[in-house]
């Protein structure tokens, strides 16, 4: 998956993990900042689970919540974690 397709996939997963509380338009309006749209701790946990289950990349478990605050920073974490992705 190239980085643009990966970012798009993560955006979809982030909206789904928001459980109806976040839309693509709202995210675009905040520069794709999850924090600025009031993303909850539960949504963050769901997003990480979804990425691990659906993208097959195990994210750095020690990365603090601040690393998950924008779609771009999450994409960067996934790219960095790609080296240890499950086959």
């Amino acid at each position, binding site marked *: 998956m190239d980085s643009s397709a990966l970012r798009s996939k993560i955006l979809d997963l982030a909206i789904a993990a928001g*459980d109806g509380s976040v839309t693509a338009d709202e995210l675009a309006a905040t520069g794709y900042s999850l*924090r600025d749209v009031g993303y*909850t*701790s*539960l949504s*963050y*946990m*769901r997003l*990480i*689970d*979804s990425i*691990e*289950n659906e993208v*097959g990349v*195990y994210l750095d*478990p*020690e*990365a*603090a*919540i*601040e690393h998950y605050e924008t779609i771009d920073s999450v994409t960067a974490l996934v790219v960095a974690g790609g080296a240890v992705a*499950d086959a």
Partner: protein
Amino acid sequence: MTTVEERTIRLDSARAGTGPATWGQRAIWGVVTRLGDDAPRYNLRLDLPLTPPRPASRVLADLTELLRMHDSLRTRLLPHGEDGLEQVVDGTGELPARVRTCAAAEAPAVGEALMEELAGRPFDHAREWPFRVGLVECEGLVHRLVLAASHTAMDLWGEGRMLRDLELIEAGESAESLLAARPALQPLQAAAVQSSPLGRRRDEAARQHWCERLTAGPRRIFLDPAAPELAATDPGRLFPNALLRSPALAVAVERVAAELGVSDAAVLLGAASHQLARMSGSSDVLFQVVVSNRFQPAASESVSTMAQEAVFLLRDADKDFEDAVRRTRSVSFTAFRHAGYDKWALDREVARLVERGEAADHSCWWNDTRDPGIGPFDTVERPRSALGELTGRTELSWPTEFLPRANVSVAVDVLTAPGALELCMTADPAVLTRDGMERFLRGVEGLIVAEAVAREDA
């Protein structure tokens, strides 16, 4: 006069299968097996008045549908070798239902006695389903449904889901329609994920995180315990239980959470950490935090046992309340990511750390039991009084005392009540007096209310 009878729930052609036990099943099975005859104190108890009363045939049919819906209610657990535990989901079988017939006025007392009969003895997890049923019948109709379940079948979150599903089935839904609308994770599915390469990696990372935090945390939290000699001179001492019921806290915690951009759960845990650090003399504090592990929608619908403990270590917690709350958000996020693991393996690693004197004091517990879907002002009007006035309505009571609990110095539960939040605290009198317990609870409330008032005035 009360008469005694037994009827049978018959199930066939339900989902069946065999696989390794889940992390949650292993954790609880290990605890209740070690407790032996004392295991019933972990059993879950539900004595439900039926309004209006219903025919027994209808109640038994509803329970059959509930059994069909949730595999955990018909799962047996069998030891397998030195370190193995197998779950066997039966698709066919019979469950006895004990029926007591009495006059309607006697139904509550008969229900209470029936509950003790069902829940007051251990479950034989290898041979019986972890679920027992009793009916109290008066004039041909069931007035009370009495259910007892082993903790291996469900945790408190699972119990809430089971009750909701039973109500929906009583209202006419079927297991099939409910599962189609809201898929619920079944324990065999959870076990398959946990034994996959991803699951094994999560387990290893969680146990590594636990051991690192335990090694880094304070060796003692209460530097000046109340009566340390009691540990030796009075091993059977009772642990007091205090309950603080606070309308002000329910209002203030929402306001502080919104102002600081964190969850209300982080505000409460951050305040408790700050207060514990100020009272104990240890700047760094460590809580074992009970985590529901129900982040995905299918997991949140699951009737099973998934909750496990996370290790939460907050450094310099005594310095500043706001700073403690803000850092709680990040620290608890990392801790919660490491709350799913093989408990037996972790226990062995922690025992080695304790033996070498390298483990932090991990005897403080925090359990925020609140369901995110249920708020304190769902059924009662939000108070209009100023927070300063609301604090006058806080009530502190001492409902009970408990037998000594291993590795517990302080345990705090957060609960939702109509119009209030409740903090329920149990403490070892060797560590904390009743005055100390009250100071802790009122301190947590005071910190959050003062912060809310200050931000309102700003």
